[in-house]
């Protein structure tokens, strides 16, 4: 374990790139910075048509009739398709990633505002959009279910009458932990604190909206689909299953992607519409949704109404945690999580603490809102879990009159307890929490901050210090436990070294901005000593990469990163045999130093990996039984998740007159095990912290009582800018994962998971003089002002 806090203001230039891990500018950036990125909307094919989707203006209504005749007659229109037409081909409904079904185009009813009702294909996107205005839909408007708390009321309107025998809006029940044991520790605890918490619905809002270009070749029967997907291989298989197309005749290409955050994991009706349209018209068809469509209809996140309870001894030993959750899944359960985990990984709500018992009971319901559920950098609901535990731990500290840092330090799982099995059955692979916490406190100048706060309080100024300590569970996952619609969550990887010693590595995962082309080149470079600049990283094209489940839930480095290291070692093993032939010694007599083998005890006799590559492809003899070439392929099935952790400290100031919150400082110490490219890690952390400011202070997809979405544009759905965030102060500790080949853990979502509770805790801390113990996100000035007057209200 090393604990370091460094600030690096300079970067290695291209000549000083490390051969392996280290700070290095991103290989992909020149093309992004110079406008040479190639996104789905940049795809232009000869004769390409454009598709636009008509969406429901209301949240819940029966479709009485649709008249498409005027739209069909509109200039430039090639086809108008309704749900009824799709139903004739058995394509009106599709499976979701959670074994539910979702309408591609509504046939019987619309179930949320923005639901897909019909589509137009036309010569350009203007003609397609104009023709939407000419489609006449008659709706018989029904009462909507908007408040999840009312979804199971006996008189609630039934949303999913499409499901056989369904008589209510119940989606699923789920529980974890030991109810009786938890009851017992609560019964004997000195102190029990409970708190209602809402994690409101938020939206990933990637800069690039969703879209696709479908190009079906009716002669060779091949479908090429460029689409904004985080999981091209999984999508290809699902298209094969749903549309009945042979899988080898489907090529899914996920080119440069302008942000995913989970928004691009599901298959959306628009993709299916584009495929159908290309098959029907025989032409390539492009569909790109606009900003409003993205915000109102695609995968949302959170929407958990929680009650958290915590039991402890008077001296601050946490005994148990209990929670009850009402989960709003919208109109269709489109949650993208491993199928055996309907609540994602919410089970890690026991956090970083060694406790005696825990229990969670969850009820999920349907409402007349957009489907989705797991999206937005949430690590499969760990965002909600960490928010819950870190908020109620602060409530407990408040109740005990104990410093929140001290309370956390007192209850941490200790280093010698790892691997640690939690009371909900998760096996934390490794961790060393106290040094991480202490480093964050040292960087923050924690004691000094508390002194400053006391002085300010005495003067009537409002300053708050908030702490969050999180343990993440990332890298789904062991295939015996984790699959998506039957597809095990293991990842393939393939490495080829060319005759001149340059290489190409083919990944099954796909980047939406995480820097895969650099990180994966560095992983391979570290193992075989070829400089990262000489390693091409290919991803995002199912015809050219091995099968794997895609990038989300911070799984790329834990799963595919392991695959890349292992495939490189496999190549190195073969290189060793070839080297033994070249140097005429036995394999056991060779020593590897990055990039070359030399004879043990005789460093002068050596061959480089480049020499070996040439020999492998050359005309000379190779050792007995060795085929030519220097390449390998593997499929990596992780034995466990990886468990990164981190300590975050946030300092806020609140204007007592206007209740505006300013995040003055934010200290983030992350432990993601082995650090491959620290600059990329910091970039991921900066982005996630900014997300956290958004969720804590301003973001929320709200609905009015009729189910109209009130966040349908970026003027209404606010996301933070550089002006809302402080200069991030990052630090790190390193606790390698014991089961990961290079000891790395995921980091993509750590900051999104850890920062909201730190910020909320800081705001509540600042409001202590007003007797405030809790206020829900988003902590807009108006809602903070309510809290100051003792009128904090849930946002929904």
């Amino acid at each position, binding site marked *: 374990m090393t604990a370091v806090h460094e600030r690096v203001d300079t970067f290695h230039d291209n000549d000083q790139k490390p051969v392996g891990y280290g700070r290095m500018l991103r290989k992909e950036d020149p093309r992004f910075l110079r406008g040479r990125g190639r996104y789905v909307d940049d795809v232009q094919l000869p004769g390409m048509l454009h598709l636009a989707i008509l969406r429901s203006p209301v949240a819940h209504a029966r479709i009485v009739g649709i008249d498409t005749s005027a739209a069909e007659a509109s200039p430039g229109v090639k086809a108008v398709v309704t749900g009824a037409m799709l139903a004739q081909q058995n394509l009106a409904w599709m499976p979701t990633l959670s074994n539910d079904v979702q309408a591609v185009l509504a046939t019987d009813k619309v179930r949320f505002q923005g639901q897909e009702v019909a589509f137009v294909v036309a010569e350009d*996107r*203007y003609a397609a*959009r*104009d023709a939407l*205005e000419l489609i006449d839909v008659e709706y018989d408007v029904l009462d909507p279910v908007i408040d999840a708390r009312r979804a199971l009321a006996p008189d609630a309107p039934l949303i999913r009458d499409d499901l056989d025998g369904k008589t209510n809006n119940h989606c699923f029940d789920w529980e974890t932990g030991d109810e009786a044991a938890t009851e017992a520790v609560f019964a004997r605890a000195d102190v029990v604190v409970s708190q209602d918490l809402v994690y409101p619905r938020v939206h990933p809002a990637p800069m690039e909206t969703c879209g696709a270009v479908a190009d079906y070749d009716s002669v060779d029967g091949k479908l090429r689909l460029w689409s904004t997907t985080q999981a091209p291989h999984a999508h290809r298989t699902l298209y094969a299953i749903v549309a009945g197309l042979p899988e080898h005749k489907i090529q899914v290409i996920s080119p440069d992607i302008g942000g995913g955050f989970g928004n691009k994991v599901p298959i959306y009706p628009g993709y299916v519409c584009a495929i159908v349209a290309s098959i029907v018209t025989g032409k390539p068809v492009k569909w*790109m949704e*606009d*900003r*409003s469509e993205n915000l109102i209809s695609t995968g949302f996140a959170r929407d958990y109404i929680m009650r958290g309870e915590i039991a402890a001894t008077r001296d601050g030993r946490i005994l148990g945690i209990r929670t009850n959750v009402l989960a709003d899944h919208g109109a269709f359960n489109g949650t993208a999580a491993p199928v055996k985990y309907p609540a994602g990984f919410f089970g890690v709500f026991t956090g970083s603490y060694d406790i005696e018992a825990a229990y969670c009971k969850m009820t999920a319901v349907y409402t007349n809102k957009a489907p989705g559920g797991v999206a937005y950098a949430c690590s499969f609901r760990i965002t909600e879990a960490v928010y819950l535990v870190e908020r109620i731990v602060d409530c407990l500290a408040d109740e005990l009159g104990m410093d929140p840092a001290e309370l956390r330090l007192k209850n941490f799982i200790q280093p010698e307890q790892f691997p640690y099995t939690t009371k909900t059955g998760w096996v934390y692979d490794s961790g060393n929490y106290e040094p991480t916490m202490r480093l964050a406190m040292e960087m923050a100048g924690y004691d000094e901050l508390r002194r400053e706060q006391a002085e300010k309080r005495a003067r009537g100024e409002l300053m708050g210090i908030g702490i969050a300590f999180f343990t993440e569970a990332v890298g789904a996952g062991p295939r015996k436990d984790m699959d998506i619609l039957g597809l095990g969550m293991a990842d393939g990887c393939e490495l080829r070294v060319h005759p001149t010693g340059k290489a190409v590595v083919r990944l099954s995962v796909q980047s939406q901005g995480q820097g895969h082309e650099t990180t994966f080149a560095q992983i391979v470079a570290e193992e075989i000593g070829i400089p990262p600049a000489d390693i091409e990283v290919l991803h995002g094209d199912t015809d050219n990469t091995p099968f794997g489940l895609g990038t989300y839930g911070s799984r790329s480095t834990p799963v595919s990163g392991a695959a890349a290291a292992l495939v490189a070692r496999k190549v190195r093993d073969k290189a060793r045999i070839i080297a033994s032939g070249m140097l005429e010694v036995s394999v056991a007599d060779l020593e590897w130093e990055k990039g070359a083998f030399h004879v043990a005890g005789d460093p002068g006799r050596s061959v480089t990996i480049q020499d070996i590559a040439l020999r492998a492809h050359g005309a000379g003899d190779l050792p007995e039984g060795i085929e030519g070439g220097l390449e390998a392929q593997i499929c990596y099935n992780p034995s466990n998740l990886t468990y990164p952790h981190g300590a975050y400290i946030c300092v806020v100031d609140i204007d007592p*007159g*206007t*209740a*505006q919150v300013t995040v003055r400082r934010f200290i983030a110490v992350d432990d993601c095990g082995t650090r491959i490219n620290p600059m990329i890690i910091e970039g991921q952390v900066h982005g996630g912290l900014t997300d956290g400011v958004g969720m804590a*202070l*301003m973001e929320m997809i*709200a609905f009015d009582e009729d189910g109209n979405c*009130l966040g349908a*544009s970026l*003027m*209404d759905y*606010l996301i*933070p*800018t550089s*002006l*809302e965030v402080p200069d991030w102060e990052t630090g790190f500790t390193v606790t390698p994962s014991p089961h990961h080949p290079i000891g790395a853990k995921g980091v993509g979502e750590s900051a999104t998971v850890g920062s909201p509770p730190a910020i909320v805790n800081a705001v509540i801390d600042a409001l202590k003089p007003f007797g405030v113990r809790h206020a829900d996100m988003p902590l*807009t*000035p*108006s809602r903070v*002002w*309510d809290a100051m007057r003792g009128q904090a209200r849930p946002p929904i």
Partner: protein
Amino acid sequence: MQVPAPFEYERATSVDHAISLLERLGGTARLIAGGHSLLPMMKLRLANFDYLIDINDLHGELGYVEAGPDEVRIGALTRHRELLESPVLAAAFPIFADAERVIADPVVRNRGTLGGSLCQADPSEDLSAVCTTLDARCVIRGPGGAERVVSMEEFHVGPYETAVADDEILVEIRLPVRPGCGSAYAKVERRAGDWAVVSAGAAVWLDGGAIVDARVGLAAVGPNTTGIPAISAALRGQEPSESLYEQAGAIAADSCDPVTDQRGSADYKRHLAAELTRRTLRRAVERARS
């Protein structure tokens, strides 16, 4: 990409040309200045027009800030950025720079105009509150070069509705200059570049120690930006003091009519009307004194 409904487009070559086009095309046409209010509405298809008449080529004719002895005159096509950077306004009415720093973002400010802001008549428009505070007069030109001058109260007929007729164009804003003036603006927003939760402008005119006149303009607290004559009445002839600001704040809270929405509750907005009135009056007095 959000696409507007089809429309025809023409660039005006002079103010009179623009007016003659408006005369011919009537209510089916709209002028486009910076486009930062009009285009978003058209893209969302909340507004559809058959014709757009682009007046951006008239910046030479309508883009200026000029100081006269009795008034400062600003052309309707003067951009936010020019208002922000104007030395004339910095000297006479620092309220402009206060407001411009918190209006939208640099991209919007490079194009958006004073005339467009006033003509949009959005109840949250910051420059409307500034102009109300400064008791601006609006010069409207119609067919045949006929000009009329109206007060801000007359100019704003209702939300998104102004006194400018279909065949007229706003050409100039006139701000009366009186001695001893100090002015300031404050805004509470949920995020940089967002529209106001509430904003307030204040201007005071001092003679010796006493307030000769004072005006407060609020945005986002009612159907239109609101000038509050009762505040002027209460402050005139008084010595500035904290209790006087308190009193003015209380009048501001009483005189406005906010609604609860995503930006905040009506109660909170009322509170802000008082708080920001106090803050801007305090600052305006400091400035008048220095």
